[in-house]
């Protein structure tokens, strides 16, 4: 029978691998997609400008700025950088051909209110302005309406002077194929960082800012941290195993069971969801811990007088209970609305089941010849049980009163001082606006979108904004402008133009990608355009306009994270209820309370401790509590159900997990350090409580 089951296990695993190989799941790295997959517009908008690098060149001497700019431009690899080539003469010709309906907002307002003389006065100022360059001659455009229209679109200097220093800003945007590949993007950024280091000296400073730069430095730092943590964890586990079992051979079946579990989890999640979010991998590292727990449980129980089959029979109840309760805890997550939680649940359940079956079916074969001389770990005899438990409860209650939440996703990452400084200087030099929000305008066609944009601009009396309608007014607006210009020509005459002044009868200006390639960035999709608003904070004013959606990315994302955190918190009740029911069926009501108490108290304690230490609770603290329940319950079940030797297995499981998660809690990436903090403190508490609350007697 077991032979058949082994064959079936391998067969199912192979089928999963084949199915996955036919359609390999993509790895999703966009963090927002993990929590807000349905809010595609918000995800798209936030990602729209994330492949751009800003290079800021600073020097006391303007010549050094120019020299460094030329060198940087020469050295940078432009093969994968997006370029929007715009023939400025061609665009200008297009504007000239359609100038009859083009008016700046200022002139439009003046003409609408009948202040024709004021328009004439302003055109005289342009005429006499010594520094003025006119786009059309006074004969062609006596009121310089086109010059005024173009001037009002804005402009910036070639070199910026700030705090007695000269600055030049260069912008590079990577092609989508590079931007979507983290490893390729990091390679490209690394080249830029090398150029930066090469060209920076005492005379010239070069600052790099933008999402790819932060990604590069953060990932470089994370890789170093993770490598160090990985090496220390492996050394610790190996040392402990060698100390206890006097052999490292047990690591082979442990790694094989982990491999089988990971394949099962990866394939199932990939087949079911089509893609796997990278955070799913991070959270599913629990599998490593749990598979190690199961294996340690086996090896500690395996005494020389027992056959492998007998050892399995001895521990099968504990293992099955542990597996069932952990799977149940994750099962509830399958019914949440968050993609990340669903993926974590499926990955962990499938993986755990794979590890469990591997151990039951294959350990008797694989471990038949592994002889370990287990050493008894001395038990701590602590007398102040009641004081300790009371202390944990009191601290939990005090901490829970002091809880603070922080759902601001911005706080998840703390960049280095150098990057913060670069962002600060860049922001000051470029006079970056403190806040940018978006509006997506949907219309029947592009003309409808442009009309809506103009309506929004009028309602909000916008001055600081960017939209396609600023560059290409709607046909409706152009018709209105034509009437105004015609009235201006008939009302006001200019004495500096001798030839007859004729109103320019020109065709309407319409968008074409060929003429205005740079305006493509304002098109979200067919019949949808994007407006960018600066320092705007009154979205209520545009509520009710059909087809208009306002996005304040930071606020919207934080709200979604908050909702996600609240939804996760609410899942604790059904998770504990389900676990209680399962444990009550197996062990009885009284015992199930006993088994659950350590995990429950540890969860409350670790959350309370964040309150006492003044750490703000975030979504990832809450998610880590689910993992804590999974681990902690196993400890209690093993202790409750196992022999005295099992205490050693639980101790070793606990100490290896706590050590690894404690190292993770020291990382610079808050998401990971949050998980590390909850699991290291929580598991230690859960273990200590299980010693006091659960005894074989």
């Amino acid at each position, binding site marked *: 029978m077991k032979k058949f089951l082994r064959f079936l296990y391998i067969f199912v695993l192979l089928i999963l691998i084949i199915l996955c190989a036919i359609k390999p799941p993509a*790895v999703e*790295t*966009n*963090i927002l997609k993990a929590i807000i997959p349905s809010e595609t517009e918000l*995800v798209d908008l*936030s*990602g729209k*400008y*994330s*492949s*751009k690098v800003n290079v800021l060149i600073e020097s006391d001497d*303007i*010549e050094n700025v*120019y020299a460094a700019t030329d060198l940087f431009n020469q050295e940078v690899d432009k093969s994968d950088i997006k370029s929007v080539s715009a023939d*400025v*003469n061609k665009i200008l010709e297009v504007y000239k051909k359609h100038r009859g309906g083009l008016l700046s907002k200022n002139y439009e307002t003046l003409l609408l209110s009948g202040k024709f003389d004021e328009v004439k*006065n302003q055109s005289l100022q342009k005429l*006499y*302005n*010594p*520094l003025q*360059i*006119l*786009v059309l*001659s006074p004969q062609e455009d006596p009121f310089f309406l086109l010059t005024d229209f173009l*001037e009002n*679109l804005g402009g*910036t200097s070639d070199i910026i002077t700030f705090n007695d220093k000269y600055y030049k*800003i260069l912008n590079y945007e990577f092609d989508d194929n590079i931007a*979507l590949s*983290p490893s390729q*993007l990091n390679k490209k950024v690394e080249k830029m960082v090398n150029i930066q280091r090469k060209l920076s000296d005492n005379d010239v400073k070069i600052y790099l800012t933008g*999402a*790819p730069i*932060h*990604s590069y430095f*953060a*990932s470089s730092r*994370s890789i170093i941290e*993770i490598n160090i943590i*990985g090496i220390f964890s492996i050394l610790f586990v190996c040392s402990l195993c060698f100390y206890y079992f006097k052999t490292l051979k047990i690591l082979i079946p442990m790694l094989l069971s982990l491999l089988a579990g990971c394949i099962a989890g990866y394939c199932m999640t990939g087949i079911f969801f089509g893609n796997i979010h*990278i955070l799913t991998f991070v959270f599913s*590292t629990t599998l*490593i811990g749990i598979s190690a727990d199961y294996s340690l449980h086996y090896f500690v129980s395996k005494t020389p007088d027992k056959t492998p089959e007998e050892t399995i029979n001895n521990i099968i109840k504990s293992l099955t209970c542990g597996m069932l309760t952990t799977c149940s805890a994750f099962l509830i997550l399958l019914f949440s609305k968050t993609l990340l939680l669903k993926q974590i649940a499926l990955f962990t359940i499938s993986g755990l089941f794979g590890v469990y079956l591997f151990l039951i079916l294959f350990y008797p074969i694989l471990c038949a010849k592994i002889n370990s001389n287990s050493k008894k770990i001395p038990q701590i005899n602590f007398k102040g049980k009641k004081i300790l438990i009371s202390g944990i409860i009191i601290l939990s209650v005090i901490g829970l009163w002091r809880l603070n939440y922080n759902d601001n*996703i911005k706080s998840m990452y703390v960049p280095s001082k150098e990057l913060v400084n670069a*962002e600060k200087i860049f*922001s000051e030099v*470029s006079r*970056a606006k*403190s*806040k940018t929000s978006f509006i997506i305008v949907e219309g029947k066609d592009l003309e409808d979108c442009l009309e809506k944009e103009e309506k929004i601009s009028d309602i909000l009396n916008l001055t600081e904004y960017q939209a396609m309608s600023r*560059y290409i007014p709607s046909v409706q607006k152009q018709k209105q402008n034509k009437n105004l210009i015609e009235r201006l020509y008939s009302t006001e005459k200019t004495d500096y*133009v*001798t030839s007859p002044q004729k109103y320019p009868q020109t065709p309407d200006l319409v968008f074409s990608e060929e003429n205005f390639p740079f305006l493509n960035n304002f098109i979200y999709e067919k019949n949808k355009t994007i407006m*960018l608003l*600066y320092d705007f904070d009154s979205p209520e004013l545009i509520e009710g306009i059909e087809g208009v959606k306002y996005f304040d*990315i*930071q606020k919207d*994302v934080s709200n979604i994270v908050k909702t996600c955190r609240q939804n996760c918190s609410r899942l604790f009740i059904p998770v504990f209820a389900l676990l209680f029911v399962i444990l009550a069926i197996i062990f009885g009501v009284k015992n199930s309370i006993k088994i659950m108490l350590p995990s429950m108290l540890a969860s409350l304690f670790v959350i309370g401790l964040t309150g006492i230490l003044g750490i703000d609770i975030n979504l990832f603290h809450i998610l880590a509590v689910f993992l804590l329940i999974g681990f902690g319950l196993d400890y209690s079940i093993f202790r409750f159900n196992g022999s005295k030797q099992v205490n050693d297995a639980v101790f070793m499981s606990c100490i290896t997990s706590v050590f690894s998660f404690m190292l993770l809690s020291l990382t610079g990436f808050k998401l*990971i350090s949050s998980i590390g903090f909850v699991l290291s403190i929580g598991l230690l508490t859960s273990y200590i409580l299980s010693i006091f609350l659960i005894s074989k007697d």
Partner: protein
Amino acid sequence: MPPYGLGSLRSHGAYAKIRPRNDVNLILRYNIFVKKILLFLVFFIGTIVVKAAAIKDIANNLPQMKSVSCTFKQQKTFGNTVLNSGGDFQFIENKGVVFKTKYPIQSTTTYSSASNKQINEIILAISNKNYSYLEKNFDVSFEKLSGGSWNLDLTPKNSAIKAHLKSIFINGDSNIKRIVINSVNNGKTDISFVCGK
């Protein structure tokens, strides 16, 4: 831990999502990019690699100019029309120029106004001896005259600029004394300065 490394979390826009402040900067740069395209339309800045040796010599011969207040007279000619104006002029070191036109209309043109930046930048480039700026945009002819005076002729290099600006002539000694701007649509603008009197 999966083989991807936690670093991958930071990539592909992940940072932008978790640090919206950065979005502001990115979007602003995008905004400036769009503005720049339009700025090109208005000001026709070109970039062409040129020989730098000669222009370095020219820059060495130009005096370092200090802040100064002057009066100016301007004559604009287009077609048969000649327009005369005048007023006060101020050169502020490292910032640029301010024209206060007093007749026939009253108006003030400052260096900070977006529409005046291009000509202002040329004047700044000359006064700051910023030969890189000049060499990128113009063919430069320099003549050193007796008594410390000099003439500088700037002719745009590429067709985009040539289509709108014919030439700029500048005469000066320790200060700029005369500027003549020959433009395609603007006719000729001849400005003379009297400083320090």
